[in-house]
């Protein structure tokens, strides 16, 4: 095996370029991690001491000793998992409908759904907030999950995936006596698993990191998600007098995401590569 082949077909200059690119991407993460192990007082004097001892677990201890932190962690998990399941169910059904079913105004409706991609969350936040207030859904899990289910990107993504599956498979299943739903459930849906995994991971990440809606919908601390809860535990000027704690919070909040990434790494990489090829 040649040296270039051993490096995945990359020439030496390309390999150096990739290495430098990776270093640039990783540097802020390493910087954050190192800062999180330093005392706040020391960082207030000089943030450049991040790469020299002494280090401390004090910032992590402060987070874990917080009264509500595990409650916020559970809230985030419930909201993220709930949103992900909901998005996968709805987007798969909608995607199948747009890709396979003929119904009046299908194209117009599809364009209408896609228009949702162009509307930022902030533009609808007031009516959305008032609607949820009238329904009495603030400070509840449905209140945190439901807005995340309306995902035009997911509908578009799943529609495209269903369209790429040959129609002959549907016809064969129907000839064998499968119903419309049976065809969808037993034949087509399993074929979309890579897309489901991709959409699921993206949805989970977006939901986990979501801040704006949970900030104004969950106004009681027992319903905060992790992002809002950690923000609430910061004092003013945290970036000056509590930098280590701030960085520890960032690391702590990203640990579950990191776990999700490690578990679904293959699907994420495949999805990214697939998107690039298409």
């Amino acid at each position, binding site marked *: 095996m040649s040296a270039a082949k051993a490096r995945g077909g990359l020439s030496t200059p390309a390999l150096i370029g990739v290495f430098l690119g990776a270093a640039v991407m990783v540097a802020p993460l390493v910087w954050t991690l190192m800062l999180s192990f330093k005392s706040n007082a020391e960082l207030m004097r000089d943030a450049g001491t991040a790469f020299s001892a002494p280090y401390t677990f004090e910032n992590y201890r402060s987070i874990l000793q917080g009264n509500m932190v595990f409650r916020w962690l559970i809230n985030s998990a419930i909201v993220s998992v709930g949103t992900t399941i909901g998005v996968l169910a709805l987007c798969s059904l909608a995607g199948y409908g747009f890709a396979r079913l003929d119904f009046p105004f299908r194209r117009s409706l599809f364009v209408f759904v896609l228009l949702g991609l162009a509307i930022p969350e902030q533009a609808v936040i007031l009516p959305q907030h008032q609607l949820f207030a009238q329904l009495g859904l603030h400070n509840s899990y449905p209140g945190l999950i439901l807005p995340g289910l309306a995902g035009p990107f997911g509908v578009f993504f799943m529609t495209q995936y269903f369209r790429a599956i040959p129609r002959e498979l549907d016809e064969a299943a129907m000839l064998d006596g499968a119903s419309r739903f049976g065809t969808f459930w037993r034949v087509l849906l399993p074929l979309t698993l890579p897309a489901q995994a991709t959409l699921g991971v993206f949805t989970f990440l977006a939901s986990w990191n979501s801040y704006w809606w949970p900030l104004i919908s969950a106004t009681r601390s027992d319903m905060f998600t992790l992002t809002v809860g950690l923000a609430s535990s910061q*004092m003013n000027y945290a970036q000056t007098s509590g930098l280590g704690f701030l960085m520890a919070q960032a690391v702590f909040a990203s640990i579950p995401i990191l776990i999700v990434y490690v578990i679904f790494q293959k699907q994420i990489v495949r999805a990214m590569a697939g998107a690039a090829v298409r």
Partner: protein
Amino acid sequence: MRALAILLLALLAFGCGRGDDRTEIFIQRFFGECGAVYGQSIDVAAAESECGILTTLINRFEAENPDIRVGINVVAWPGYPQLSAQIAAGDPPDLVTMHQSVISDYQGRGLLEPMDGLLREAGIGPETFTAAGRRGVTKSGRTYGMPWDTIGRLFHINTRLMAEAGLMRDGRPVLPRSPEELLDHARRFRQATGKPYLIQAHVNAPDTHVGILYTYLLAQAAVIFPDARHVRLNTPEARRIVELFRRIQAEGLTTRNQDFPAATAAFINGDGGIFPTGTWMIGPYDAEAATPGQPLYRSYAVLPFPHLWGRDAAFVDGHAWVMPRRERTPEQRRALARFLRFLASHNYDWTRTGHLPAFQAVLATPQFRSLPHRSDIAAMAATGAQLPDYVQRQSAIQGLIGEELEAAVTGIKPVERALVDAERRVNELLAQML
């Protein structure tokens, strides 16, 4: 087995029968969450930091008032998006921490309840507030909050470097009494120490410049906001302030290109003489001054802004406790009155954070005066002034003016052009208000 079942049933019945008949009040605050350290503490004197002192105070109130249950919501700083959302949803808390400069935004829309009656019931008259505190919570002639403190900008001073520059007399820093003297001191300081006289945050810190501008406009008795829809910035008074700070920058008498954390580190490390920043930094700097081996060790003083023009003045803000409008039972009102009375009686404890008290009585106590540096800055509780009570959107306005001032001071824009632009942008914002 039967006995066990009876016992279980009895326990269940006892448990179900014990309802919580305490009066509940719901309080929302910022200042962070520190339940891990102070969640069970009622020793107020032993508590430290804004979060620690306030958490302990509320614990103590609950311990002393077993018939009242205090629900607490700690919100992400500054908490106004959440408060607005709660008001829109018809479920605001009973009592909220609010900056005095923000009260007009909510009071102007009828979202806050006047507190004159409740404070009277609590035995707290507005005459007991400091002048700055009273001005901060009085809107349209009524009291819309109980002031909790006064916060403002001060000159934090490295006395060792000032001594090197010959700017100490009888152990106290000598501050300039005119713009010309300020430049003279700054040049002498630079020559003697090789370091800049001022440490300033010029990057991402618009409020720094606005605090200086407002303070010296107030000192010159300039009318900044002639009415609720207009600001007046392109004036000789404003020009002479901005031109002075432009000159300080141009002559290298101040640090450059620093944000707030960098400026803080620079001051702690003795990289300059004076850092004009808030009351809230007294605690951290005092801790540095008490640590042997640190550049600030035994070398820290803090004073109000020097008198450069007109009269003594300071642009200040403060925290207050306000009541959003909502239905409340008479029991809840009585509980709130007791809570406010308790807080007022513990205002001294809060001043250990570095903020100035909101009550005259605390200001006069030897206990307060004996806290580090407090006697030097206590005058600000009387001279401190806010913008007129009809000025809304003060935070957004500070952002706009601050951007233009940063551009002017750092030389990106001519001073007059920056002031014209600031005036235009603020007036456009105010014209759009409903």
